[in-house]
């Protein structure tokens, strides 16, 4: 099933209810089908919907269509210039052949705790645009990510685009991640932004990315590292226990702190 327009796609999703699943790049959905983790009756391939594509800059806002692939983000001059945090992050997302098909919208909709973009969205205070039969709404990243693979998306809704403020002169951002090998999912990662306000968005420290709110308010690194403990409430996973993750989060905070503080 391959609708040509957003309206058509929303129509089909409504008609088929729970049995239908959106298929974008397929780089997460197809493996889960292969492993029999899910077996939707109908796949609604949204990849031909033109309105979900492209990157545009308007005033100081960058709008990125949900179907923009990791590879397109990586190659985009607009992203390199105006959203350097994402340009850095995309290099950590999977491998070239997967980057050619996987999409920004798919990654946000999936909300994998180890994925890079959700944390970037938090750090940049991105707005995620969602369309459903009842119209369009914009949701701030902080309200979009609800839990482990859980978002504010309702059945039948489609992520259409993401808007992020363009990085201004004097603002800084840093993306850091510890992984076993290039392209693997992160053990722990950090998307950091410093403008009028500082934001440290950690990921893979728990079920969803978190802003270390108290650490961001501190004047010294030592105080920030201390505050980080209560900010994160780290949980371990199959591979790394909570204490190790907490330690690694502190290491990343220190690196980011130093990078954000040194002038170019």
């Amino acid at each position: 099933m391959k609708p040509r327009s957003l309206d058509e796609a929303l129509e089909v999703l409504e008609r088929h209810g729970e049995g239908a699943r959106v298929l974008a790049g397929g780089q997460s959905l197809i493996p889960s089908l292969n492993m029999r983790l899910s077996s939707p009756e109908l796949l609604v391939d949204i990849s031909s919907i033109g309105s979900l594509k492209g990157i545009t800059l308007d005033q100081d806002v960058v709008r990125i269509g949900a179907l923009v692939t990791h590879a397109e983000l990586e190659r985009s001059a607009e992203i390199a210039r105006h959203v350097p945090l994402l340009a850095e992050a995309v290099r950590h997302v999977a491998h070239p052949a997967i980057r050619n098909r996987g999409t920004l919208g798919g990654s946000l909709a999936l909300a994998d705790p180890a994925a890079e973009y959700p944390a970037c969205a938090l750090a940049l205070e991105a707005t995620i645009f969602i369309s459903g039969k009842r119209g369009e709404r914009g949701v701030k990243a902080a309200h979009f990510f609800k839990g482990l693979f859980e978002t504010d998306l309702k059945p039948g809704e489609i992520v259409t685009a993401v808007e992020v403020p363009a990085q201004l002169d004097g603002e800084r951002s840093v993306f850091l991640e510890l992984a076993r090998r290039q392209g693997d999912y992160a053990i722990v990662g950090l998307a950091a932004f410093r403008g009028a306000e500082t934001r440290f968005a950690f990921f893979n420290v728990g079920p969803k990315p978190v802003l270390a709110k108290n650490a961001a308010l501190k004047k010294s690194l030592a105080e920030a590292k201390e505050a980080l403990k209560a900010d994160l409430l780290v949980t371990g996973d199959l591979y790394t226990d909570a204490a190790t993750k907490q330690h690694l989060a502190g290491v990343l905070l220190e690196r980011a702190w130093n990078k954000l503080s040194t002038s170019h």
Partner: protein
Amino acid sequence: MEQALDITLTVNGVEVSRRVAARTHLVDFLREELDLTGTHAGCEQGVCGACTVRVNGDIVRGCLMLAVQADGCRVDTVEGLSDSKELAALQQAFHEKNALQCGFCTPGMLMAAQDLIKQKRPFTREQIRAHLSGNYCRCTGYQAIVDAIEEVLDGQG
């Protein structure tokens, strides 16, 4: 009950039309329907890279794409790029540097490596390794593979 769909695509320069089950993976379609068994299927979860093929010029995972998603596309496999001699220099270098042992990973490695070589510019060993990070080899330890690719890149001057 599974739905079947008619698709038309260009595989290694030849147009083919077939009716396929909606959930058939591209790699299975190539291997079973078209007998192009050079493309391998290993993990079927996108992890190993053995199934790497080109779709509209870009490398993708054959196991993470459905045949129906390739409708209207240009698909190139290791057989096609061998026949056109595009892979000749790389295959020669793999042979000379002993960059393959069992050969299971080789088609995917060649496809991923050619993706760098066709850009006709220099790459460091780290960049080569990063580009191949999604391709697993259980035999060679990668050193010889990177050597072979480096040789071809150097030869392009």
